[in-house]
């Protein structure tokens, strides 16, 4: 068929037009074979601009449209819809990105114009080979999965359940609650963390739309937006959840109390059968098989003997639950970094050098010291305390993290204030690089610490902490404002260690094919405009998994993620991307290379009768499930015989683009 292609060059105000001679681009592209219409306009995406495209499609019976404008991620959909309204198949539209790839990155007008023309030619070459495609439909499973049962996961689940949808929370540890359950008080109001968290936990547990899978992990994810299939491994608790009454006798009687308490950050020990903390939900203990005498030696069985309900089950096995979901929210949260790279702070040498999270546990009434502020070495009350900020945050030497952990300035002010309030005779010094307190009532909070509680803030960094023979610590630092070296005695040193995403996120992101950045935070679909969505459709981000956040921010983002998930679950059908792979059975070897590389499990093999000139045989050939295929193209490049091709991005189209560029 004779091609009738229309070219539309956008100025994007001055975004493109200031660097690219748009008139020249129109003039040059008008000369390309098949081009019957070429024009430029200030804003192609505007209503007037779109009207121009629609009018040209109708008047000149265009068979293909090339829009030279911004990235297809911005307006491809806009122009496809515009074409569709004018009666042209939406997949007959190609975008030449002359903004992000030309005007924004080049200065020289002549060169930029030349490149814009070349990209336009490539798009024209491609559109000449486009074929009309039709989007299919897929169903939406009206159930959401939330990975992580911290405050982010709980809030997201509550909001989704509130909208009337079923939602499951998968939590790796024996109880929901997450990091927030370990905190003593919360800034800037200083209310007790457990007091505001526990009601939410109870609500999640009581909500009939919410199913909790604690002590469980996501094992396998397949499928796609609207129709994920997830295998959840329910680890063997060794306690029958349906029988256990949560009386706690087993934990009391357990003779092996030497396991380090994860909840108390290893500051004390717990029994081998345990619930992490008193308000744990579910209030059903688990047996830590690595520490349990029964599992280690075969002898003991005390818990089983004392359990009135007969709930102890040493034979219990891991269970795999397979469930379908329409949307998945990742809320895997954070941990603080390991301090191996920071030997100068003597964290490994002295029990009196602790992290802020350990201090939270020490300050907490349910913690290892019952809330008394004391040194872990000799249980004496400290007189001088030094807080060191930015341990591993804002790090430029590669030992720590380049980012600001965001919460440390505020929680350190909180710690300093609480200590000065409860123990007025304790001197508190804080070494900081900058104090960063943006947020509602945050700076006022910090100023109270300085002005009302006389916390000694020193701008400067600590070079070394030395444990002395008398059990004290010497802090060697620098005061940048007075420009002098400081050497001071301390009884306790508290390190504001950087936070980092939960290390499991790499595995989870791989299963979800969700992208992560260099710091292992999940990437948003758009940093500003789609901050709670992953670029992978149907995956949403909640809490610190996306970037450092405090509790109020986490809760707001958790709500936002829930709304996005609800928006998806509310749909009955989704349009599928027609740009999927197809196998040419005449060329297919049946070698399985494509199936091996397919991240979506979309390729299977069938024995099919193949008929061609001189051929009539049954061959093992690849078959693509177009509902599962996401059009990533991995199979097309892996296929040695070129039997796999991607609709809308065929090998021929791509070679035509390259040829046009190299012409």
């Amino acid at each position, binding site marked *: 068929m004779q091609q009738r292609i229309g070219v539309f060059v956008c100025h994007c105000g001055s975004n493109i037009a200031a660097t690219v001679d748009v008139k020249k681009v129109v003039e040059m592209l008008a000369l390309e074979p098949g081009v019957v219409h070429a024009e430029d306009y200030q804003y192609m995406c505007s209503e007037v601009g779109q009207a121009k495209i629609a009018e040209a499609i109708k008047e000149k019976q265009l068979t293909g449209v090339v829009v030279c404008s911004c990235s297809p991620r911005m307006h491809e959909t806009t122009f496809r819809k515009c074409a569709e309204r004018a009666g042209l198949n939406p997949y007959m539209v190609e975008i030449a990105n002359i903004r992000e790839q030309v005007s924004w990155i080049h200065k020289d007008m002549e060169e930029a114009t030349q490149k814009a023309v070349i990209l336009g030619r490539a798009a024209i070459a491609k559109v000449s080979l486009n074929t009309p495609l039709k989007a299919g439909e897929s169903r939406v499973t009206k159930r959401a999965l939330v990975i992580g049962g911290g405050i982010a996961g709980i809030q997201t689940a509550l909001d989704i359940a509130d909208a009337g949808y079923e939602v499951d929370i998968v939590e790796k540890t024996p109880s929901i609650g997450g990091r927030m359950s370990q905190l003593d008080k919360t800034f800037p109001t200083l209310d007790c963390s457990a007091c505001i968290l526990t009601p939410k936990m109870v609500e999640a547990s009581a909500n009939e739309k919410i199913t909790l899978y604690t002590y469980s992990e996501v094992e396998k994810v397949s499928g796609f937006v609207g129709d994920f299939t997830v295998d959840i491994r329910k680890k063997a608790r060794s306690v029958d959840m349906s029988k256990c009454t949560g009386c706690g006798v087993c934990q009391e009687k357990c003779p092996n109390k030497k396991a380090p308490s994860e909840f108390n950050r290893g500051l004390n020990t717990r029994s081998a059968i345990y619930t992490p903390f008193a308000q744990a939900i579910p209030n059903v203990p688990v047996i830590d098989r690595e520490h349990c005498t029964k599992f280690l030696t075969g002898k003991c069985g005390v818990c089983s003997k004392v359990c009135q309900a007969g709930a102890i089950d040493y034979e219990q096995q891991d269970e795999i639950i397979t469930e379908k979901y329409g949307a998945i929210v990742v809320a895997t949260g954070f941990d603080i970094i390991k301090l191996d790279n920071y030997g100068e702070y003597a964290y490994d040498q002295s029990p009196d050098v602790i992290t802020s999270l350990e201090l939270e546990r020490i300050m907490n009434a349910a913690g290892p010291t019952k809330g008394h502020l004391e040194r872990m070495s000799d249980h004496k009350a400290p007189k001088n305390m030094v807080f060191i900020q930015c341990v591993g945050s804002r790090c430029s030497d590669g030992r720590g993290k380049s980012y600001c952990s965001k919460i440390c300035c505020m929680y350190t002010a909180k710690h300093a204030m609480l200590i000065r309030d409860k123990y007025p005779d304790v001197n508190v010094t804080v070494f900081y690089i900058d104090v960063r307190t943006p947020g509602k009532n945050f700076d006022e909070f910090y100023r109270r610490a300085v002005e009302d509680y006389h916390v000694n803030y020193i701008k400067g960094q600590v070079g070394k902490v030395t444990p002395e023979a008398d059990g004290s610590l010497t802090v060697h630092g620098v005061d940048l404002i007075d420009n002098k070296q400081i050497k001071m005695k301390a009884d306790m040193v508290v390190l504001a260690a950087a936070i980092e995403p939960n290390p499991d996120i790499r595995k989870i992101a791989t299963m979800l094919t969700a992208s992560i950045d260099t710091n292992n935070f999940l990437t948003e679909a758009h940093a500003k405009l789609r901050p709670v969505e992953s670029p992978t459709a149907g995956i949403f981000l909640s809490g610190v998994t996306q970037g450092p956040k405090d509790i109020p921010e986490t809760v707001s983002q958790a709500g936002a993620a829930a709304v996005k998930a609800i928006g998806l679950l509310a749909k009955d059908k989704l349009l599928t991307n027609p740009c999927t792979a197809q196998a040419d059975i005449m060329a297919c070897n049946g070698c*399985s290379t494509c199936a091996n590389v397919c991240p979506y499990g979309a390729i299977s093999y069938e024995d099919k009768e193949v008929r061609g000139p001189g051929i009539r045989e049954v061959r093992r050939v690849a078959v693509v499930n177009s509902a599962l295929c996401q059009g990533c193209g991995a199979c097309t490049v892996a296929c040695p*015989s*070129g039997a796999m091709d991607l609709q809308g991005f065929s090998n021929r189209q791509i070679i035509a683009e390259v040829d046009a560029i190299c012409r």
Partner: protein
Amino acid sequence: MQELINKAKELLANGTVVRVLGWRAGDLSYNPEPAFFETEEDLQKFVYDGFCGANLSKYMIEASKLDGKTLVFLKPCDTYSFNQLIKEHRVDREKAYIVGVGCRGKLDIDKIKEQGIKGIESVEGTELDGPDTLTIKTLYGDKTCSYASAMLGRCHVCKGKEHMIADEIIGESKDTKDAERFDAVKAVEAMSPEERFNFFQKELRKCIRCNACRNVCPACSCRKCVFDSNKFDSAQKANVDSFEEKMFHVIRAFHVAGRCTDCGECSRVCPQGIQLHLFNRKFIKDINEYYGEFQAGADIEARGPLTNYTFDDVEPSIVKERG
């Protein structure tokens, strides 16, 4: 050799197999060729000597489509190719009766010629249990050279005397490795980019696009090669410039990367003597370094390093840095 013929006769007679895949004498005494035998009479032409370098694995693709079992003779290094073909579903294990044959390294007539021996009529002492010295009958009288000095380049980096797959084994094999597998690759890596470019330019300029390397390669087993496909503009095309000379071989190397067992057939059959295996061996060396030691065809179950993902995979930036 007689033992192999006897085995073939026995299996044909008792109906275990309906044909035999082996080698028969070619036009020249040192040029035996792969052949199918269906009767006892046919088997009179069967040979197995030091010049039977041809890897018979690939012929099993067609044999798998025929009715009945085929007896195939495989040398230790051929079994890697056979395994790789099983893994890619190109041959049917059930259609093959594999006799692993002994090998003490295979011979290259050019290696004898390179020693200044001209007018060769025949070579004696090439059989499996033959002497360490070859006697070469020439127009100018008898000459001798050592067996090892006449071996194919690939036999100097022998993968070992074990058969990776076989129903039975006849004859003793010998590990003939006396050189480092990657030394030649390292020498190319050590060149400056310019020298390297010139080196490959010089090698590939010799290519006449006869497609022998592709046709013999057990990894190049596509039903329809991209270079024969009308879906691309490259079908049946003679090289018109140096870019196209390189394109064919570079694309071929990419297509077999992670699947090439380093059987060396490409270099053995190249009429222009291009060291084609260097491309493949460079990929093998890189794959070993980036993704851990991997020998294609050693294990039917193992996933190829380029079609597998593990958390320990090297980051793309490192691959890029090291070129």
